[in-house]
């Protein structure tokens, strides 16, 4: 009888809450590289992070019903655009998130603007997304090339690495990273001696490394990502680049890349990230949950960005009472609300779509200093949120007047 009463009470509560809080239906699409070189920095790990964000949010908001779809853009802008069109038009997806690969992200951002939907970038890096190519439907969450360049580039020039040679991945992301780092290096008083652009997914870098070696630059900047960065670092070690007195700057290195290289090869590398799993208890607890789905892997800042981005989007959906059809209005609401989540803490989204939070200058540990699996970095410096990203007025974003 007591049990029956309990059930009845519960039913009454549910009925009331149903009457009070409006039912909110949301459909989210995780568009990522599921099967190629960026699949470990985003990919299935992003889907896992998205599911966690949804589970955490709907636990406190039972009236919110979230559906999730995922897709593989194969690093091809045409395929990414096609999936985005299909999702927005036919499958009624309200928001697309992640999209590593700046070429694809810029294309999808255009689709989101044309169809007046929402797009949150976590995986892609090009600072153009909130620069000249910004629009009122896109938010850039986790990191960008300006922030990487400013963090790593400036720090290295300050410690004496004042002549640079770039190995650049030959597409939108690499060009943006190279451009932003050159600006940061020159601003800090350094000089760029040369650069070479290689196709994405290059196997052998020895030819490029030899050119870098003969340039006599003190620092070789790796303006590439994923497997390309791993191959560059692995082969630079082989060609005795670091022993010869030149140092490597990994302009975009993820925890998964460090795991793939192993600490003996990666040690001493300086890099910038906005999130590191081992930074505090909240991150560690989150990582433990994430690893239940991605065993033996380490979450990257992109995964954290997917979690935080979805959390903020769902908050906005509730604030708007589920009225998500006008993408511009949704994004405007997201910008007007301060962000807060367990991974990035408190933050804001600027008028150009740039989400700001602190960035961390990290150094890969020596194998002897690493005490447990995943113990990758020493934190060398924290760059506060207002300095980590490009000043609002310098981005040439049409949304920013003046």
């Amino acid at each position, binding site marked *: 009888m007591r049990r029956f009463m309990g059930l009845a009470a519960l039913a009454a509560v549910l009925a009331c809450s149903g009457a009070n809080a409006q039912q909110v239906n949301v459909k989210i699409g995780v568009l990522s590289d599921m099967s190629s070189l960026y699949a470990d*920095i985003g990919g299935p790990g992003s889907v896992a992070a998205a599911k966690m964000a949804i589970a955490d949010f709907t636990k406190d908001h039972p009236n919110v019903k979230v559906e999730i779809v995922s897709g593989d853009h194969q690093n091809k802008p045409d395929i990414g655009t096609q999936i985005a069109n299909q999702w927005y038009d036919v499958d009624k997806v309200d928001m697309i998130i992640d999209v590593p690969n700046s070429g694809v992200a810029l294309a999808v951002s255009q689709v989101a603007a044309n169809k007046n939907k929402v797009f949150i970038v976590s995986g892609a890096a090009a600072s153009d997304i909130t620069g000249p190519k910004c629009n009122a439907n896109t938010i850039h969450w986790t990191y960008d090339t300006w922030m990487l360049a400013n963090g790593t580039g400036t720090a290295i020039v300050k410690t004496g690495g004042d002549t640079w040679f770039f190995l650049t991945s030959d597409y939108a992301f690499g060009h943006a990273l190279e451009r932003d780092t050159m600006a940061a290096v020159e601003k800090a008083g350094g000089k760029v001696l040369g650069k070479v652009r290689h196709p994405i997914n290059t196997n052998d870098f020895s030819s490029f490394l030899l050119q870098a070696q003969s340039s006599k630059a003190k620092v070789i900047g790796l303006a590439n990502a994923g497997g390309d960065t791993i191959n560059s670092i*692995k082969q630079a070690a082989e060609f*005795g680049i670091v022993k010869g007195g030149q140092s490597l700057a990994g302009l975009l290195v993820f925890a998964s890349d460090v795991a793939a290289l192993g600490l003996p090869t990666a040690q001493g590398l300086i890099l910038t990230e906005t999130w590191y799993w081992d930074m505090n208890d909240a991150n560690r607890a989150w990582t433990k949950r994430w690893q239940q789905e991605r065993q033996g892997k380490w979450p990257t800042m992109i995964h954290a960005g997917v979690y935080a981005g979805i959390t903020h989007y769902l908050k906005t959906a509730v604030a708007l009472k589920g009225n998500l059809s006008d993408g511009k209005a949704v994004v405007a609401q997201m910008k007007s609300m301060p962000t807060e989540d367990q991974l990035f803490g408190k933050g804001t989204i600027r008028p150009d779509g740039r989400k700001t939070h602190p960035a961390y200058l990290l150094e890969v540990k020596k194998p002897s200093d690493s005490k447990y699996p995943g113990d990758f970095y020493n934190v060398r410096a924290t760059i506060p949120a207002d300095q980590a990203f490009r000043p609002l007025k310098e981005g040439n974003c049409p949304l920013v007047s003046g």
Partner: protein
Amino acid sequence: MFEIFGIPSTALFGQLLIGLINGSFYALLSLGLAVIFGMLNIINFSHGAQYMMGAFAAYLILQYSGLGYWPALIIAPILVGITGILVERFFLQWLYKLDHLYGLLLTFGLALIFEGVARNYFGSAGLPYTVPESLRGGQNLGFMFLPNYRAWVVAASLVVCFGTWFVIERTRLGAYLRAATENPTLVRAFGINVPRMITLTYGFGVALAAFAGVMAAPIYNVSPQMGAELIIVVFAVVVIGGMGSILGAIITGFGLGVVEGLTKVFFPEASNTVIFVIMAIVLLVRPAGLFGRRA
């Protein structure tokens, strides 16, 4: 120091040497393809996946038995070769009488499965593998720094390539093999077990791919897609050399490595495409390839 097209000659020598090193991977892989196509008439699209399996086998051997690079160089090709033999016994042997397309589709499907399984268990970022202790360091040649490991790669692949060529073109065993592809019924009449010979040949071709995979593990990223990236280029190499021509595969492999290396100096953006441009030209001028038997 004199200059060639604005590039210092010393830098150019370095690039030529590096091209030769990369060419040795092309040669090893295209050799396996050429052997399999020449002897079995199968276009082995899973060759890249089997190369990847070689590298993964080296990693797993290190993880689970503690055996390093040198034992892996022998054990990994044998293990992967055995998987090749199973594939031949269970699937490929039914396809010899059908159109090439069936073999191509089957092996392509297998490649996707192998890569998918590897990605599922190991992820796509890659696995660490280091250069063996005895081959660390390098020589300063004056015009470039040559890592010892790269020198070993060139030497080993030259030996393996010409050894294979010698066995197939110059020994009695090779003669049986070639005869069996021309007229299996007649060769069987002489008391030779043709199906077993074909099975072993496929196993050998696959083992060659795995051997290249182990050689690649210390210097390239060991990831599930490592073979898929390379295999397209290797197919172009085989087409340029002439399908099924063993010497053609070896020579074009090394030659195109050099061409690609030079492209990386003069026009790096095109280094991924130059081989396909050459392939298109060769197919226009000599449809059977540079060393193809049919004119």
